């Protein structure tokens, strides 16, 4: 019993329940005539697609800025990079990297402004971040129509101005990463390149957290007064973390697009933050502590459930439950995490 208690305490109830649920889905899959190969590769694909956006939350959690509900801002930087790349006419696998490069200056500028804003609202970061995310999406809804894009693959056909809601990346960087070293066995498909790229970005973040600056950032999140007394510029560290978060959000959405096949504009980024936040929390992160491991476990569990429930549950109970479960799990997870926030002394 004691041993069991220790396991529960170490893993945490939410992670355990969701892990068991996912496991049971995999067990149930063959009985519901769902091919295990397809479901496993779907899970891995979605894991790879969303992983970097989940990772994007880590720097801000480390610096004590809380969960980055303003992730849509980073995603918008990524969308700008993506659309500019297509506008420039870059094609092929290289266009993915051009898109990331093009998104970088936007991510830096947005992140800098966003970081400065968050430095003025210390203690209420998450609420303000939510508004930043939502309002930036609304603002860009106007800008997508007004910005002088002209590439025929992107603009509305009948008038020639304004970007369409969804833009295909086919011919640009569709599956640029996913197909790299991909493994196909029957119905099973392993997007090796995408997973490798995600692993590489995870390594970069892990490495960053092991540098002097990364250590200072973690200390700022752990105890800002201590960090200040040790000569660390708190506001600067926080701003760096926000810029990093925003940039990772931009890279994340571009990787997402290359697998998904489409750039989703307008309201596309609106709800992107919530699944990412839910995923990292399921992974065992808290509002002020997160590790790369939390990201990997969380992204896998959360995306696994999203992939498996529609196929398995639908064929068992003949009803589309996936959306309901997704909403319950993601919002429930966020609620659960926010009740654990330790205020003041901890």
């Amino acid at each position, binding site marked *: 019993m004691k041993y069991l208690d220790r396991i529960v305490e170490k893993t945490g109830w939410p992670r355990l329940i969701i892990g068991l649920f996912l496991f049971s889905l995999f067990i149930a899959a063959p009985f519901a005539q769902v091919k295990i190969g397809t479901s496993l590769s779907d899970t891995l694909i979605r894991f790879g697609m969303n992983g970097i956006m989940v990772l994007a939350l880590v720097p801000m959690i480390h610096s004590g800025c809380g969960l980055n509900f303003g992730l849509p801002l980073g995603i918008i930087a990524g969308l700008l990079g993506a659309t500019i790349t297509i506008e420039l006419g870059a094609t092929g696998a290289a266009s993915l990297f051009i898109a990331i490069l093009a998104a970088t200056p936007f991510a830096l500028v947005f992140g800098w402004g966003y970081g400065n804003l968050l430095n003025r609202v210390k203690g209420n970061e998450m609420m303000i971040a939510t508004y930043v995310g939502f309002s930036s999406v609304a603002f860009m809804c106007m800008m997508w129509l007004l910005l002088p894009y002209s590439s025929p693959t992107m603009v509305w056909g009948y008038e020639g101005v304004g970007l369409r809601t969804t833009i295909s990346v086919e011919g640009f960087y569709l599956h640029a990463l996913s197909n790299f070293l991909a493994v196909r066995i029957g119905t099973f498909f392993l997007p090796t390149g995408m997973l490798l790229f995600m692993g590489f970005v995870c390594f970069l973040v892990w490495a960053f957290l092991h*540098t002097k600056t990364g250590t200072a950032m*973690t*200390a700022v999140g*752990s*105890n800002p*007064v201590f960090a*200040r007394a040790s000569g660390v510029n708190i506001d600067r560290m926080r701003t760096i973390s926000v810029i990093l978060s925003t940039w990772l959000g931009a890279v994340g959405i571009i990787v997402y697009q290359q697998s998904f096949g489409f750039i989703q504009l307008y309201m596309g980024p609106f709800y992107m933050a919530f699944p990412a936040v839910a995923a990292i929390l399921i992974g065992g992160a808290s509002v*002020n502590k997160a590790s790369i491991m939390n990201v990997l476990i969380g992204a896998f569990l959360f995306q696994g459930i999203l992939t498996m429930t529609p196929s398995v549950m639908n064929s068992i109970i003949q009803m589309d439950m996936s959306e309901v479960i997704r909403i319950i799990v993601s919002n429930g997870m966020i609620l659960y995490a926010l009740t654990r926030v330790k205020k003041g002394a901890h």
Partner: protein
Amino acid sequence: MKDKSPLLEMRNISKDFFGNSVLKDVSFKLEKGEILGLVGENGAGKTTLMKILFGMTVIRDTGGYSGEIFLEGKPVSYKTPFEALDDGIGMVHQEFSLLPGFTAAENILLNRESTKNNFMTELFGDRMKNLDRKDMRKRALKAIGKVGVQLHEDMLISDMPVGHKQFTEIARELEKDNIKLLVLDEPTAVLAESEAEILLKSMKKLSSEGISIIFISHRLREIINITDKILILRDGRIIQEKPTSSTNISEIAEAMVGRELEVSKREDVRVFDRTFLSVSRLWVNMPGETVRDVSFDVNEGEIFGIGGLAGQGKLGIPNGIMGLFPGGGEIILDGKKIGLNSPRIALDSGMAFVSEDRRDVGLLLDEPLDWNISFTAMQVQNKFLKPIFGNLIKWRDEKAIQNAAKGFIDALEIKCTGYSQKAQELSGGNQQKICLAKAFIVEPRVLFVSEPTRGIDVGAKKIVLDTLIKNNREKGTTIIMISSELEELRSVCDRIAIVDEGKIAGILPATRPAADFGLLMLGTAPVSGGAE
């Protein structure tokens, strides 16, 4: 009967907070019309004793007290302050409890206003009564008259200088018809001398009218001038209870700080020849510990003590010099001027600080010990970093950090499961040792140590102090130690400065008798022949 039994008798009062004993077996009597002076260092138990008398809920919430209280011969035990008020006990607290947007008269008569009927009262009852402003003014003026001050009854509290606020509070207590006993907790602390004079005069008058007063003050001169009897508390015990006429200031001061038994005899008086740190005209805006105008010089290799009562500004000095609170003035370290208001500048110049606030400033509670110990050195001095790609990336050297942590854990006998244990899991004493390790590791030229033994047990205390002395003797670190415990300062330091009201009251060699320091703390001029 009333004439036989004293107005108030407290018998064998003891109280502990979570096993930490703060009052032990305190008994005293107070006669009708008598003024009792209650003196003692911070933490001696004065306020707790008054809280027990007054039935403050905090006492019950923390397990109540033992002992008995008699008021006019009847045993009483108040569950709330309201019951104490009903029995005619009034209290004026250190902190004001006044409504800032109300006038003096309104505050004095709050909840006891004069009222008159109108037609609404017939319909809706007493809550609809009008205020009888005229009568209220009369009553307020009468109460103010009792205090004996000029105070405009229509003045808003928010517009008043502190002195007037204090008078309003006292007037409020005096307005009550049944008042028998008045407790004044440091009423003169915020008053100017002339105002204090007035207050003391009115206290005399009140006592002649038969109101008993318990007067808590750090100003011994006032105590001597006004009280009939003096009760000295130290570490929760009554050390001395004497009629005022048979004692004097230096006797009181000695009894207050006391601990003559524990004094370690210091025979060696070290001589220094080089001024190392020079602080002049320092002011620091640290809430509750304001430093107004402080100047002192510290010699190289010296252990310099800064003492004084809480709230007088001694803690503001290191916090200001280290840039944690805004301040101004001139700091010269080893001939170089050091900028203020930036922790980084202070750290870069070779100063280090062990904060009195271990949990908030001193430690990363959620992080392992090795991080806590090495962080400052890493950030300020680039220690424990491995350069990669030239100096492009500064990689954290975990091995070196862990080894350094292990070294300190052994050297300072830190009780823990290992360097990866989280700081919050350690006891106070061991946390303090981590804070010291954090400071030693940067090899500071000047080390500020603030309240190093606060809240830690005797054994740990000794290790902490011995470590400081060892560091000073072996590495020659100049140490500035700030502490509320005079005896601790006297056993460790070479010279001790006493801070009073944000200024240095005097600097004396540690070998001087405790009473001299006690006098400085109490704002009384030192006995002739001070060192400075």
